[in-house]
């Protein structure tokens, strides 16, 4: 049947179309090592595909912080009640390659002398 090759072709095209995409499943779109020193504006949220939080840096820029998946983040002892809004934190990870997106995939959250390593630090 000639229909089979054309069907497989259409399906393959749909998958290949997305070869350049990147986000929470990879670090492809976050390649520059980065550090943020700032204050917590939205606390650790362990509900989605990845844990998240938000931090405001010294320039007033609010950053979306992507942590590990929730169970892994919680296992690193970083939970919803670990930090308080307004606490100073230092974060290290890889910032988003898009200069207009203030998002960082974060390896380490340092808070009051404790390091929470949600991924192994580089």
């Amino acid at each position, binding site marked *: *049947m000639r*229909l*089979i090759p*054309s*069907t497989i072709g*259409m*399906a393959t095209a*749909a*998958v290949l*179309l*997305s070869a350049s*995409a*990147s*986000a*929470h*499943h*990879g670090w492809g779109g976050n390649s520059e090592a980065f550090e943020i020193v700032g204050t917590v504006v939205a606390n650790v*949220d*362990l*509900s*989605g*595909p990845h844990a998240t939080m938000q931090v405001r840096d010294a320039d007033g820029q609010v950053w979306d912080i992507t942590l590990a*998946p*929730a*169970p892994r*983040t*919680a296992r690193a002892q970083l939970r919803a009640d670990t930090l308080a809004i307004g606490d100073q934190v230092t974060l290290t990870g890889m910032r988003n390659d898009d200069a207009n997106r203030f998002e960082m995939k974060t390896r380490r959250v340092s808070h009051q002398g404790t390091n929470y390593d949600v991924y192994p630090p580089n």
Partner: protein
Amino acid sequence: MLELLSWLEGSALGEGLRASGVWTYGFLNLGHIAGISTLFGSVLMLDLRLLGLWRSVPLAMMSRPTVPLAVIGFSLAAASGVCMLSVNATEYYGNPFLLIKFPAIGLGLLNVVVVSFLPEWKERAERELSRLERKRLAIAGGVSLAAWATALGAGRMIGYW
């Protein structure tokens, strides 16, 4: 679109799931994958049969296990998918793969409706189908496979955007 996503995220479902522990999303994801694999595996077998493979297996025999399994798989995938989306729906606003996936699912479901009205499908167990009827079913099988494969591919890529 954004209004719909905001409403879903703000719904009691979204609120409840976000508050229900660190493993919730992982289990929803597991349910989604189980549903998808059941659906797509069934669809693949039936569609390839409609496209002309395994002609020694009567169509009615092939549709007997694959159709109910596809329904179960779709139901599981749809239920878990709505739950997953409700956890952080607004984050997917503007995600192009979502805009490929949902029309593809719509096309797949529309195809199901169309096929269910075709006499050659309804009478597949009772009589021998003509060459033209087999061809029409093959086209439906091709549309189905393209639609569900597109939904599968675009769905997987949502998280990579």
